[in-house]
Each structure stands twice: as structure tokens, then as C-alpha cells.
């Protein structure tokens, strides 16, 4: 709604806040109180950032991270939505899978990473599968809640007009659940990014998480901060993408407030 285009005053406020932050950082860097290793100057971070986004070899690292993250996320999205809708609409499926999901939900799946490495190798597969596992839970849980909350009158009307079960599922249940599904996606996508970066930090020879640890270990903190900035911007950009997609597909119910734009 009106929040889509924030008023000039609030834009100015945000730009001012950002400028103050950058200036404060630069002042800290120039004050000489800290070693440039701990607080590198903005200029050097910017230079490294420029190198990062212009050199193909660093773009490849970013591509590895994005591909792993989105791969695991997409897998979780497909399986999670199917399972969630099933659990939301069928008491039997809910009784069958429900306890398994709610019982293992609070267990940090990241602890399984070493086993995954042994089972699926140290390459991308173990990381993608771990991302899949971590993303599956929020998607299943929110989709199930949405599937349960479908308005009964809509289901009855569709059945009354002679729609088959499959048709009801596809034309009524899935659209009615879509806002919940996207809420689950918005929780899962940052988790996918977290797990990509963590697994790349722990064991990898490529990807942005590896680049962070490598730059830190070789005392290139300006480079490390530039990579951190890239990861942060990537996280924000992916989130925006999901919101865009959501507002396009779930056009009858816009996301409002700061979440939107």
C-alpha cells in the first residue's frame, strides 16, 4: 500500500542514518585507536567489495553458496508444501507425521552435519541435504497450519459444485494456504542462508562462508568485511525476491508493514 513508496522524509532519514554509520566507522578507523586489522577503513572495504563483484573467481564462490542454498531450499519447498498440505487436510497423515515433526523440531539438525559428511561426502550434497532438512520444518509447520485453516464454506461450495477431490486440493486448498506457505518460505530462506554459510565455514573449499574464514585466517579483514557485506546483501535480496513473488501470486492479500518493501 502506501508503504510501498516510503515518503521522502523517511528515505532521507534512512540515508542519513546510513551516512552517520559509515562516517562513524571511518572516524574509528582513522582515529588510530584500533589497528587497521580490527577496524579497516571504509575505502579499503569498498575497494575489496569492488574486487569481489568484478572478479569472476569470486563471483563463482558466490554462485556456489547461492546454488547450494537455493537447491536445498527448493527441495524443502516442494517436499514441505506437499507434506504440509497433506498433514493439514488429512487426519491420518497428521497423526502419522505430526509427532515426528513436533518431536524433532527443537533438535538442532546442524549437529548431524558430521554424519552427513560421512554419508554424502564433503562436497555440495551433504550441505544441500542439511539445508533441506533445516528448511523442511518451518515450511511443513506453517503449511499444515494453513491447510487446517482453510475456510470450510469454500470447500463445501466447491464440493457442492461437483469438483473432484484433486481439483478441490489444487484450486481451493493450495491457493487458500498460499499466504501460510509464503510465511514458511520467509522463515526458511534465511535459515537456508545461515546453514549454507555455517557449513561452508566449518568444512569447505569454496563458497562465501569459506571465503570469510579464509580471509580471516589470512588477516585480510577488509576482504572479510566485504564478503560479510555481500552475504548480508544477498540475504536481503533473496528475501525481497520471495516477498515480490508472494505479492504477485497472493495478489488478493498484500503483505503490509515493513515486511513488504
Amino acid at each position: 500500500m502506501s508503504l510501498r513508496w516510503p515518503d521522502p522524509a523517511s528515505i532521507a532519514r534512512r540515508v542519513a542514518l546510513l551516512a552517520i554509520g559509515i562516517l562513524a566507522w571511518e572516524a574509528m578507523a582513522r582515529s588510530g585507536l584500533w589497528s587497521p586489522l580490527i577496524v579497516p577503513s571504509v575505502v579499503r572495504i569498498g575497494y575489496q567489495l569492488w574486487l569481489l563483484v568484478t572478479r569472476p573467481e569470486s563471483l563463482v564462490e558466490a554462485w556456489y553458496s547461492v546454488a547450494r542454498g537455493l537447491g536445498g531450499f527448493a527441495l524443502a519447498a516442494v517436499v514441505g508444501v506437499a507434506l504440509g498440505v497433506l498433514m493439514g487436510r488429512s487426519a491420518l497423515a497428521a497423526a502419522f507425521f505430526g509427532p515426528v515433526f513436533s518431536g524433532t523440531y527443537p533438535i538442532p539438525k546442524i549437529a548431524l552435519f558430521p554424519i552427513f559428511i560421512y554419508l554424502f561426502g564433503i562436497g555440495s550434497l551433504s550441505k544441500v541435504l542439511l539445508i533441506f532438512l533445516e528448511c523442511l520444518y518451518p515450511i511443513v509447520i506453517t503449511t499444515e497450519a494453513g491447510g487446517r485453516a482453510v475456510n470450510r464454506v469454500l470447500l463445501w461450495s466447491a464440493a457442492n459444485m461437483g469438483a473432484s477431490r484433486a481439483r478441490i486440493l489444487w484450486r481451493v486448498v493450495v491457493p487458500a494456504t498460499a499466504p501460510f506457505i509464503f510465511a514458511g518460505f520467509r522463515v526458511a530462506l534465511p535459515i537456508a542462508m545461515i546453514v549454507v554459510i555455517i557449513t561452508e565455514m566449518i568444512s569447505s573449499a569454496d563458497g562465501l562462508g569459506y571465503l570469510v574464514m579464509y580471509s580471516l585466517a589470512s588477516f585480510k579483514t577488509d576482504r572479510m568485511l566485504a564478503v560479510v557485506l555481500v552475504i548480508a546483501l544477498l540475504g536481503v535480496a533473496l528475501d525481497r525476491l520471495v516477498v515480490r513473488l508472494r505479492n504477485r501470486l497472493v495478489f488478493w492479500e498484500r503483505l503490509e508493514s515493513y515486511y513488504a518493501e
Partner: protein
Amino acid sequence: MGASLRSRWIGLALLAAMLLIWQLAMRFEHPNFLMGPLEIARHFGEALRSGELLPHIGASLVRSLPGFIIGSLVGVVLGLLAGFARSLDQLLSPPVFLSYPVPKIVFLPIVMLWLGIGDLSKIVVISLACFYPCFINAYYGARGTSTIMVWSGLNMGARRSQIFRKVVVPSALPLVFAGLRVSLALSFILLFSTEMINARSGLGFLIRQSESSLRFDLMYVAIVAVAALGYAGDELLLLVRRRVLAWQQATSR
């Protein structure tokens, strides 16, 4: 009640069946990094008795609990206030919502650089990660307060601070607990990843160390301990929620 009880039994039966299949599968030829549930349980008992496990559990809790408590406390308080007072909303919400999708673990190297590689840097990163879900949920909880309730309160002559305490906070509590639950799960994820990346103690360290020294028994013990800890924390939180939100009928977990 009967249906929920029955679904509980079906779920338990499924769990038991999975464990049984797992145990039976281990009768076949398998690589030594795989282990059956009975074997893991035996090693778990041994590790508890030998004192190999408890110090690491203690070290992990010393990092995760302060991180969770600080991060979620600040998040809940600021989120409630931002949802209540417009000036704070304009000040806090844009930066918080903008930085929310940033994976917080990337700040670990920076924080390590500034605060050292000890417990403090881990606590800071954990509390940073726990802040966000709490802030966002408390914010929406406070914003979702029914206007009629606020009007009635005002009509009966309540002051702003009273409205906040007696109307906004209680009506935001269900979402606050939802946020706390997400934060608790996140705090465990971050705890074990920070410990896997660098630590000299803690369960994440134990998993890494026993894995690289091929002590798979100890690795499984540590993983089970992690799982048990995550589960126990979640159950504890749900217990508190049932107590605090006794007036709201809990429909789902």
C-alpha cells in the same frame, strides 16, 4: 482428547518402528561410522559415567543460556515498545526489518576479531540471532492488540503505561512465546555452529573432535546430548507458556 491421545500413540508407534528398523538394519554389513540406537544408548551411559560428557554440556549451556536470555529479553522489550509507541517504531523497525534476513552467523568472524575467540564472542552472536525473532513477534503481537480493548481501557481512565502493561503486553504474549520458541531453536543452531567453528569445549567441539579422531561412539553421544538439550529446552518453554497463557486455550503445539 481421545483423538489427540490416539494420534500420540500412532506417532509413538511410528517412532518405535523407525528405531526398530534402524536397529535391524545395523545387523547387515555397515561402515563403522554408522551405529544402532542400542549401541548409542550404551555409549551414552558410559560417557555419562566416565564424566566425558557433562563438562561439555556445562560449557555449552554457559554460552547458550546467557546469549538466549540477553538477546530475547532485549528483543521482546524493544519489540513490544516499538509496536506500542509510534516514535520508537519509526526509529527501530526499519533497520531491524531490513537486517532481519542477514544470516547472523557471518558476524561471528567480526565479533571474534573484536572480542576474541572466547565465550564472549559466542554469547554476543547468539544473542544477536535471538534478538530478531523475538523483536518481530513481539512487535506484531503488540500491533495486533485489538483497538477496542485499548479504547475500553482509555475509556475507563487508564494511563498510557497502564494500557501498555495491562492490555498490550497480555495480548501480545502468545506471539511473544512464538518468538521465544524460534529464538531458542536458533540459539542452539548458533551455539553448535560457533563451537564447531572454534572452541576448546562444548558439545559442538566434542562432535567435531570425536569425528576427526574417529571416535564415532563419542560423536553419536554428543549428537544425542545436543538433541536432548534442544528437546528439553523446548519442552520447558512450552511448559512455561502453558502456565503463563493458561487463559488462552492452547490448540496446537
